[in-house]
Every structure is written in structure tokens, then in C-alpha cells.
């Protein structure tokens, strides 16, 4: 655990420049005071320079990603400058120790005033223990305008518990839900294609041609994330493969079988790039950047990694291909945001802690974070204009705008089913990934493997129904059309 008090020492040159820029940018507005109609004015609801705020607060955070220590210290220095008399003490914990450290601090009556809660599961835990304060006092039109429209709905924000706002996000939720089809425009052109595949059938044809023409050094595709094919045909809840429109385990659904079959046939025909079976997370973008892999389904963060490795590569970004018959579902936005920052219910300086939360949710803070780390943050208005000028980021935004739908999240909407979700999610034997990997790699039928998992999930549901008779109905959202956004 590292503690820093007051002002920072030894900032990087970039941090100093950014900090100076942010000071200039905020010179005309209060970080925690005033506030106008324009949401791009700094976050600001209470207090303000000379507004009477004084004292000390402690913020427990995680110095992640690299460079975050300097960034946070610089940002809180700005907060202190805008609020003379305020001292922000920072406690840094390694990411994998943060939750245990927070537990220990609260159990000893020394909880921080503001903390990184690291996601929904921990937020629920801390909320249930009464350690997390409501942030509803922050919510007004100005605050709401900082975030995408409708993303602060209590039933789908991911930031609410029992209808109360109890957390603030950091990075944009849709960034994590968006899945892309990356393709090398040069390799496609060399093989006579002027655009990416839009359907599974086109993908198979293009990948086969590229691999055949590649002579063992260039390959059409690698099935590093077959689940992205599944999500365009099946409205799943996350881990155990429960179809939330029926409340039934549904991994052996014919549409899912067809999605896996595409990759199995490619593997059996020697089209997939060999060796993918044992790749670690960074290997796909390494192979893509090296020009050995023409196309693959991926998460958004690979885009920046490819660009770092091969700045001049001809990289195209497209939606995940769908079946010829059309898509049956979208990538599921199960919560609008991931909860990151929360305020302690035991804070001795509530006004100051609330002001710090307001600062962490301000447009200026989000903008600074985007500029420092290149990550899309929760406040889209803070960075969207800049992102549209960047071809790669604009491509990601275009896919995100069309390929995601809000799905009902049983973990947020169904009080009482928490134990089932924890059990189902924590059992690696119920992970569908194992079934489709075995099918593709070993060239065996997927359907019986998936059916076996469905049987286990069904048994688990029945087991939990003994204690919670309403469980099945809590998993079912029969009125939801998977091709539309879910609205509670």
C-alpha cells in the first residue's frame, strides 16, 4: 500500500503539461462550484472555490493503468487548487489487493472517504454491508447531461442499488460490450476483396481463399473469440448460457450450434491459422500486426495495440458478420456502466467527499483521462469530437452505435437470485467456452457437449428453486425482443 499526501512530486513531463492544460481549461469555471447548462463545463454541483469546503479526505485507488499514480495525483492537485483548504490524501493498493484492503480498512473503522470499488460484484457487497453512501444529491440535469442519454436509469445503469445512485463510472461501458471484426485491407485487396465479410458465408469463402493463396505464411482467420458469433444469434445471460427470453439453459440451441459449426469446419479444412489454440491474449493482435493473419473477431482494445505495433498497417474495422438469414440478437449491454468510484457512508467529511465524487464524474476529469490513456470514458461528450477525428476510434464508435442493444440483466433486476448467479458464474465446468473450444479443436460435435452443460445448469436451477421458488421467473424476460433495447 502506498500513501501520498498533498501535492505530488516527480510528475512526468506529459503529466505536468496536461495538468497545466487542465488548470487553464478550468480557470474559468469551478471544479466543484457553479456550473452551467453546458455539460462540457467542469463537473460542478456544490461548493466551489472559496465555497467553504475545507478539511481532509482519503481516496483509496488503484494505480492502474501504468502512469495512473501521477495522473490521479495531478488531478487531485487541481481539485485542491480549486478548493483552498482541502487536502486529498491518496492511498494506492495493487489492483488484486484493493478489495481486501478496503474490507480491512472498514472493519477497523478507518474506511476511506472515496474509493475504487472495482466493479458490480464488489459494489453490491459493500452496499450490503452499509459502507457505500447514496450519491443522489449529485444528480441534477447538469450531472445527467454528462453521460449518454438514458444511461443513468436505475434498472440498467449498473451504478444503482435499490434505486439509489451509489457509484460513478470511469471508462465507458459500451467500450467493453463492443466486438469488432478486424481485417487487413491490404491482404483482402491482394486476394480480390474490397471490403470485409458481412455474413458468415462470405467470411468462410474469403478466409478459405486467403489461406489457400497464403502459402502457409498468411492465413484467412483465427477463431480467437467464437462467442462473438454466438452473440449475434442468441440472447444469452452471461456465464451459464441461460436464454433470458425463456429462462431455460439454451447452449445447444440450433443457432448456436450453427455458429460453432462455422469455426469447426474452418478448422477441419485447415483454414484457421494453426497455433491459435494456445495463444495468449496478446498473440492475435501480434499476428495481425505482423501481416500473417487477415481477419479475426476481437475486443476493442486490440485496435490500439495493433496500431502501436504496426502504425502504417491497413486496418479495417467492421461489425461481426451475421448469418445469411440475418441476426437474431445483438451484443448485450447488460449494464450501461461499470461502477468504479464510490463514497463511504462513514465519511466524516461528507460534503467534501461528495465534491470529490462530483470531480471524478466531471467532464474535465473524463477528458483528461481520455487524453492521458486513450480510453473512452463514461462521459462521451468529453471525448467524442476528438475520437471522431481518429480513424480507428471512429470505426469503433460506428460499430458500437449499431451493434449493441440493452439486454435485461437478471443480476440487477432479480433480487433473490444472487446465490444462483454466483454459483453458476464461478463454476468453470459450466463455461460454454470449453464446449466450443473442444468442438473446434478436436473436431467433435458441439451439440452434445453443449447439451451436457445445459443439463448441469438446469440441475443447478432446480437445486436453487428449492430455496427460491421464483428463480425461473427471475431469469425470464419473455416480453423482451432481443432485437430491441430492453426497457424495464
Amino acid at each position: 500500500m502506498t500513501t501520498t499526501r498533498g501535492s505530488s512530486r516527480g510528475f512526468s513531463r506529459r503529466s505536468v503539461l496536461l495538468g497545466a492544460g487542465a488548470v487553464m481549461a478550468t480557470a474559468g469555471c469551478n471544479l466543484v462550484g457553479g456550473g452551467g447548462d453546458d455539460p462540457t463545463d467542469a463537473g460542478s454541483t456544490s461548493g466551489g472555490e472559496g465555497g467553504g469546503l475545507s478539511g481532509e479526505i482519503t481516496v483509496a485507488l488503484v494505480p492502474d493503468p501504468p502512469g495512473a499514480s501521477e495522473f490521479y495525483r495531478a488531478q487531485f492537485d487541481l481539485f485542491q487548487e480549486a478548493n483552498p483548504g482541502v487536502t486529498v490524501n491518496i492511498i494506492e493498493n495493487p489492483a488484486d489487493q484493493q478489495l481486501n484492503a478496503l474490507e480491512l480498512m472498514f472493519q477497523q473503522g478507518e474506511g476511506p472517504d472515496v474509493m475504487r470499488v472495482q466493479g458490480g460484484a464488489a459494489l453490491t457487497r459493500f452496499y450490503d454491508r452499509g459502507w457505500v453512501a447514496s450519491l443522489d444529491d449529485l444528480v441534477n440535469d447538469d450531472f445527467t447531461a454528462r453521460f449518454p442519454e438514458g444511461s443513468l436509469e436505475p434498472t440498467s445503469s449498473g451504478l444503482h442499488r435499490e434505486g439509489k445512485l451509489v457509484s460513478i463510472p470511469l471508462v465507458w461501458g459500451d467500450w467493453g460490450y463492443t466486438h469488432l471484426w478486424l481485417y487487413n485491407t491490404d491482404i483482402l485487396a491482394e486476394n480480390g476483396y474490397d471490403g470485409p465479410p458481412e455474413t458468415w458465408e462470405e467470411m468462410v469463402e474469403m478466409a478459405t481463399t486467403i489461406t489457400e493463396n497464403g502459402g502457409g505464411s498468411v492465413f484467412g482467420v483465427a477463431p480467437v473469440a467464437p462467442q462473438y458469433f454466438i452473440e449475434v444469434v442468441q440472447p444469452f445471460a452471461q456465464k451459464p448460457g441461460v436464454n433470458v427470453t425463456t429462462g431455460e439453459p439454451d447452449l445447444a440451441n440450433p443457432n448456436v450450434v450453427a455458429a460453432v459449426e462455422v469455426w469447426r469446419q474452418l478448422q477441419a479444412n485447415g483454414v484457421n491459422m494453426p497455433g491459435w489454440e494456445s495463444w495468449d491474449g496478446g498473440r492475435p493482435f501480434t499476428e495481425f500486426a505482423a501481416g500473417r493473419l487477415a481477419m479475426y473477431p476481437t475486443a476493442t482494445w486490440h485496435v490500439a495495440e495493433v496500431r502501436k505495433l504496426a502504425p502504417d498497417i491497413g486496418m479495417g474495422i467492421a461489425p461481426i458478420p451475421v448469418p445469411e438469414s440475418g441476426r437474431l440478437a445483438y451484443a448485450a449491454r447488460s449494464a450501461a456502466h461499470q461502477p468504479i468510484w464510490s463514497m463511504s457512508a462513514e465519511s466524516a467529511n461528507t460534503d467534501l467527499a461528495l465534491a470529490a465524487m462530483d470531480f471524478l464524474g466531471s467532464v474535465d476529469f473524463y477528458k483528461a483521462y481520455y487524453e492521458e490513456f486513450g480510453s473512452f470514458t463514461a462521459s462521451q461528450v468529453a471525448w467524442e469530437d476528438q475520437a471522431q477525428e481518429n480513424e480507428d476510434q471512429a470505426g469503433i464508435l460506428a460499430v458500437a452505435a449499431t451493434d449493441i442493444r440493452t439486454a435485461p440483466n437478471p443480476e440487477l433486476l432479480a433480487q433473490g437470485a444472487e446465490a444462483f448467479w454466483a454459483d453458476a458464474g464461478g463454476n468453470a465446468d459450466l463455461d460454454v467456452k470449453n464446449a466450443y473450444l473442444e468442438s473446434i479443436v478436436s473436431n467433435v460435435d458441439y451439440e452434445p457437449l453443449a447439451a451436457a452443460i445445459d443439463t448441469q445448469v438446469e440441475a443447478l436451477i432446480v437445486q436453487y428453486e428449492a430455496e427460491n421458488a421464483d428463480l425461473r421467473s427471475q431469469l425470464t424476460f419473455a416480453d423482451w425482443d432481443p432485437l430491441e433495447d430492453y426497457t424495464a
Partner: protein
Amino acid sequence: MTTAAITAPSKPGVPSKSRARRQAVLWGWLFLVPLVVLFTAFSLWPIVASWAYAFFDWDGVGPPEVFIGLDNFREALNSTSFWNAFWNSFLFSLGALFIELPAALCLAMLLNNVLLRGRNIYRLAIFLPVVSTTAVIGLVIAVLLAPVGGVVNEVLLGIGLVDRPINFLGDPNVALPTLVVVDIWKGFGITLIYWLAALQTVPKDLYEAAKLDGAGARQQLANITIPVIMPIAVVVLLLTFQRSLNTFDLVQAVTGGGPIFSTDVLPTYIYRYAFDANIAAPRYGFACAVGVIFGVFTLIITLLQGPLLAGRLKRTAA
């Protein structure tokens, strides 16, 4: 105590023998304190704590509160993936016992020959993988064995030994044997050092006497070398067995237990349940239970070897 009455009075300024012995014992304990404290804190306590945690449904955050009895043990023993990992761990040990040990002994005999020039250089070269970082070795191995552009496949294709690249780490049927071979290569140096140390305990005059009696190399090996090094061989065998059964870093660095768990060993299995972010919540309690089961099995297998080896020792001595 009557002892005090019959003890001769010590000379002034000269401590009695018993006092000196007591002081020596006290100093001994004093020097042991750091070791005892560290051993208790970092070895004994984690072991005992893991036994306790194994009875809880615990995610590692906060104190364990949900006592579930033997459920974690029951789940592990009924899980096919647990037995798959267990079997794979056992295969690593079999490879070490039946390939690494005899091969290292043969090479040690060669390198123990004083007539061999540059033998220290050979020893150093063979020992280098032992002190090399496993993660780096893992990365290098993955690159060398890659089916596309990997040096090994390029060579095999070039000399016509294969007509298509071998998917060393991606084929579930090939990945485990590949890792066993790499593990043997990585640990070969330490086993070699054990054998060299054992061979150097054999008195040279035994060989000289045998030569005078007209014994050949084979007879010297069977009647002198093997019997003399056998007590140390038991220790070498147990150490090699323990090391190979706990293979973790190599597997984690090269395949992560994949593809489709074909190289999964119990340490990676435990790691996955305790730390893998892909599982919704870490299951420290379950991971501890698997660790306890693993420890018990290791102990049983080790104890089983003891009587067998002791019996062999007696036969050899006779």
C-alpha cells in the same frame, strides 16, 4: 535436585560445564527463532489456514463466513476437470522419473569422468536452463515451436522430416508430451547435479581394488557405483518427483493449461479457481480444498515410495 549437591563447585569466573551447555542451547534456540518465526508465518500458517479455508465458500475477500463442510472436497473429487489435471500432473512426474532420472544419471557418469575435457563447461551449459527465468523460456519455446514461422518446424520441413508443420502447443494430443519434454530439459541440470554429487561420494579406492580384481566397467557399475549411490538416489528420486509434480510456471507461461485443458495440471487448476479473472468470483475456498487434496495425494504417493525404496535398499545391501 540432588544433582546440585554433588556438582563440584566451579572455579570463580569459569562457567560450569552444565551452564556452558545451557548457554549453548539457549544460543541455539536464539538463532533458530528467526527461522521458526518465518517458517510459521510463511509456511506453517498458510498450510494450516488453507485447511481451514477449504471448508468455506469463500471468495478471498473479507473473512470466510459461509461454512459448507466437505462440499468443496466433494465437488473437486466429482469433477472430471480435477481428475484430468491430476492425471496430467502425474504424467509430468512419470516423465521425470522414467526419462529424466536415468538420462541424467547416464550423463552424470560421463561428466564425472576426469578424462573428459571441458566437462565443467558441459555441466554449466546443461545447468543454465535451471537458472533461466521460466516465463522467458516459455515465451521462447512458444516462438520456437510455432507452426507458422517457428524455427523447429522450419527445420523439420526443410530437411523433409515432416510434410506439414507440427502444431506442438495447439494440438491437444501433442501439447502435453511437448511440455513434458520441455520440463525435463528445464529440470535436467538440477538432477544432473544431484547425480554428480552422488557419484563423487563413491570412494576411488573401490574402483582401484575392483580393477585389480579384474572387474570391467559394467561390473564396477553394477557392484560398486549403483550400490554406493543408492541411499542418495532415494533422495534424488523423491526430490525430482516432488519438483515435477508441482510444475506450474512452465505450463502457465506456455499454454495456460490449454488447449482445452489438455495440459492443465493441478497447480494451474488451483490457480484458475483462485485468481482467474474469467471466473466471475474467485473461489479461494474451493482452490484451498483442491490444494489440500493435492497435498494429501502427494504425501501418500511419496510415503508409498518410501517402503518400496527401503526394501530395495535392503536387498541391495544384502
